C-alpha cells in the first residue's frame, strides 16, 4: 500500500493563508472603527467572505479537491442567499402595510401561550 495520491499542501501555503487571515481580522476591526454609512455591513461581509474563501480553498483543501465538493458548498451558499434574500424583500416591504420598524416586542412573548389565552378569552 504505497498509496499517496493526496496532495500535501506545503507549509508555506498554510503559513501565508494563516497570516492573511490574521491581517484580514485586523482590517475588519480597524474598518469597524470608522463609519462608512451603509457600506459598513457590506465591507464587513466582503472581508468575512474573503476570509472564509481562504479557509475553504486551502485549510479545507477545496482548491485541490474533487470539484463536486466545491459545487456542494457553493450550492449551500446559493440557498442561503435565496433564503435570506427573499425573506429580506418581504421584511423590508412590510412597513408599506403596517408599522413594524422599532415596534416593541413583548418580552414575555411566547407564541403558544398567547394562542391558548386568546382561545380562553372568548
Amino acid at each position, binding site marked *: *500500500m504505497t*498509496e*499517496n*495520491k*493526496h496532495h*500535501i*499542501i506545503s*507549509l508555506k501555503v*498554510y503559513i501565508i*493563508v*494563516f497570516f492573511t*487571515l*490574521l491581517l484580514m*481580522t485586523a482590517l*475588519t*476591526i480597524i474598518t*469597524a*472603527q*470608522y*463609519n*462608512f454609512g451603509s457600506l*459598513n*455591513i457590506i465591507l*464587513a*461581509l466582503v*472581508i*468575512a467572505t474573503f*476570509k*472564509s474563501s481562504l*479557509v*475553504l480553498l*486551502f*485549510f*479545507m483543501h477545496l482548491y485541490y*479537491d*474533487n470539484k*463536486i*465538493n466545491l459545487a*456542494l*458548498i457553493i*450550492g*449551500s*451558499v446559493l*440557498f*442561503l442567499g435565496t*433564503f*435570506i434574500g427573499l*425573506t*429580506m424583500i418581504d*421584511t*423590508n416591504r412590510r412597513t408599506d402595510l403596517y408599522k*413594524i*420598524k*422599532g*415596534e*416593541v*416586542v413583548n*418580552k*414575555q*412573548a411566547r407564541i403558544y401561550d398567547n394562542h391558548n389565552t386568546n382561545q380562553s378569552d372568548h
Partner: protein
Amino acid sequence: MSNEKTSYFQHHFADPEQQYEASKFGMWAFLVTEVLTFAGLFCAYAIFRAWNPEMFINAHKALDVVMGGTNTVVLITSSLTMALAIRYIQMNNNKAAIINLLLTLMFAGTFLVIKYFEYEHKFHCGHLPGAFYNPLISPDCVSIEGNNPHVFFSIYFMMTGLHGIHVIAGMALISWLIIRTTKGHFSPAYYTPVELVGLFWHLVDLIWIFLFPLLYLIG
C-alpha cells in the same frame, strides 16, 4: 499482515481511494446542512436588525471587541494547527500530528474559557435573552437605548450558543482523534477520520468568521 494493514477498507468500495472520496463527499453534504442550520439564525438576525437598526448598534456596545477579537485569532490559529495535524499524518509523522491536535484542543479550550468570561459578564449585567432580560444599572454595564434589546441578546445567545455547542463537539472529536493517533490507527494511506474532523473544525472557524463582525462590529 496485509489483512491487518487494510482493515479500514470496506468491501463495498472499489478501492480505498473511492472509499475516501465517498466519505469526504458525505462530510461535505453534512456541512451543507450545518450551513443551512445556521442560515435560520442568520436570517433571524437580518430580520430583527432590519426592524431595529439603532437598537442593534446600541446593544452591540455591550459586547467586548477585545475578547471577541482574541477569540477570532484563537480559532484561526486552531484551524492552522488542525490543518497542520492532517499534513503531518499525510507525511507519516504521527508525533508532530499529535502535538498539533493537542494544540488545537488547547485553543478550543481557550476559546470556551474566553466565551465563559463573556457570558459571565452578560449574566452579571442581566443582558439575557427574551423574558430573562433584566439590565443592571451599574458603571461596569452598558445601558442600552432603544426598543427590544432583549431580542438582540436572544439572537446573540442563540448564535454564539449553537456555535459553542459545535466547539464542544469539535473538542470531543479531536480528543477521539488524539487517542486513535496515539494507538497508531492512522497512516498516509488511511487518515479519513482526521480529514473529516478537520473539515468540521474549519466549518466552526468559518461560522465564527461571520459571527464576529455581525455581532461585535456593527457600525
